[in-house]
């Protein structure tokens, strides 16, 4: 299997925020901030670039919300490949953490 590149913090948090369900850009940003205790922020430029690139990679896709009140709102949804990429990254990070604990 091809060795995957380490993910940037923004990519990682975006995928993580989508793991439990589709969300819009602003929701991802807020969730990232609360998950990281305010340490990680995703600005608009970073968000647009990361979502564009991950859509090209096929990790996420765009869907339209059908919830009442927020119809036609753009949401991002994790794809199977995206979920796999996130799993791989989490495995890589855990291994790194375990290694640190061994030393």
């Amino acid at each position, binding site marked *: 299997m091809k060795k995957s590149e380490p993910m*940037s*913090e*923004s990519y990682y948090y975006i995928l993580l925020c989508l793991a439990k369900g589709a969300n819009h850009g*602003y929701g991802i940003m807020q969730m990232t901030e609360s998950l990281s205790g305010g340490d990680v*922020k995703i*600005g*608009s*430029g970073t968000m647009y670039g990361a979502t*564009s690139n991950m859509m090209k990679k096929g990790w996420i896709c765009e869907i339209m919300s059908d919830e009442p009140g927020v119809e036609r709102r*753009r949401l991002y949804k994790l794809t199977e490949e995206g979920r796999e990429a996130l799993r791989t990254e989490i495995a890589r990070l855990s291994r790194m953490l375990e290694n640190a604990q061994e030393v």
Partner: protein
Amino acid sequence: MARQYKTSYKAYSAWNYEKEIEDLNAASEQGWQLVKGGCFHSRFVKNPDVRYRYQIDYCSPDDIGRYIETFREQGWEYVNSTFNGWNYFRKPWDPALPEEEYEIFTDRESLREMNGRWVRFALGLGIALGLFTVIWIIRMILTPQLPILAQLIVYAAIAVMLLRGALIMRNPDSSKSRRGDGRLLAVYLLVVVLGTAATVWLGVARPGFNTNMISESLSEPMVDNRVNEFEVKYKDNYYIDLKIDAKAPFTFSIVDEAGEEVFTTTAEHFEESGIKQKLSKGHYWLSMSCDDGYDMNFSIE
């Protein structure tokens, strides 16, 4: 009360866009709010009751709707985009908000990506113009003349400007240390504008004269300085194409205002193009003589 507008003619280089943001923020604090941002001039409206913080992004988004929405979600108002892919955004300034709220790139990777987009553009165009510079150097060696030199300078100036910009922009940290080069940009732009104007003028002012004279048989020498006169507007190298087919030796000369022959040749058959001839400013005419029929073609550029 009528709205008060002003236009600011200030050019910023791509690698100096942070300085432009600072200036927009300062203008907003003084009550001048950006209406339309541009590469060479920006328009402002007077409104002292609001204050904005600005950001500029270099991006040609695949999906402009999603792009603007992504910014709007975080409180950014889209102002406008320039023809060459720079997008202006603003957010009302709130002293209670932390400074990070006004950042649009929150990691090094995405900032590098944004800079990288411009670097790719600048390298592509810079290398193309570098190639033109080389071709124009070769043209200059083969047929030295001022219009080619002027155009060569324009190509070289743009190539150097873009390649230097690409090097600065490639490293996001260095762009901060190279801020004081607004004057250098002005010099480059001046060279480009004056060089382009010079290229056009020098090209138009060249004589571009040609004549064809045929005679079946003629015994009297002829000089016709009214028809066969041309004007040289500036001292330079000019290039002559001459073709003679005569039944007897044909003498062809170019004579200047003082009556001096600056070019002369005698032959029954002659054909050469691109003969280099240095000429000063002034009027010249052609002097020809032949004892028999001839066919002569002359042009000077």
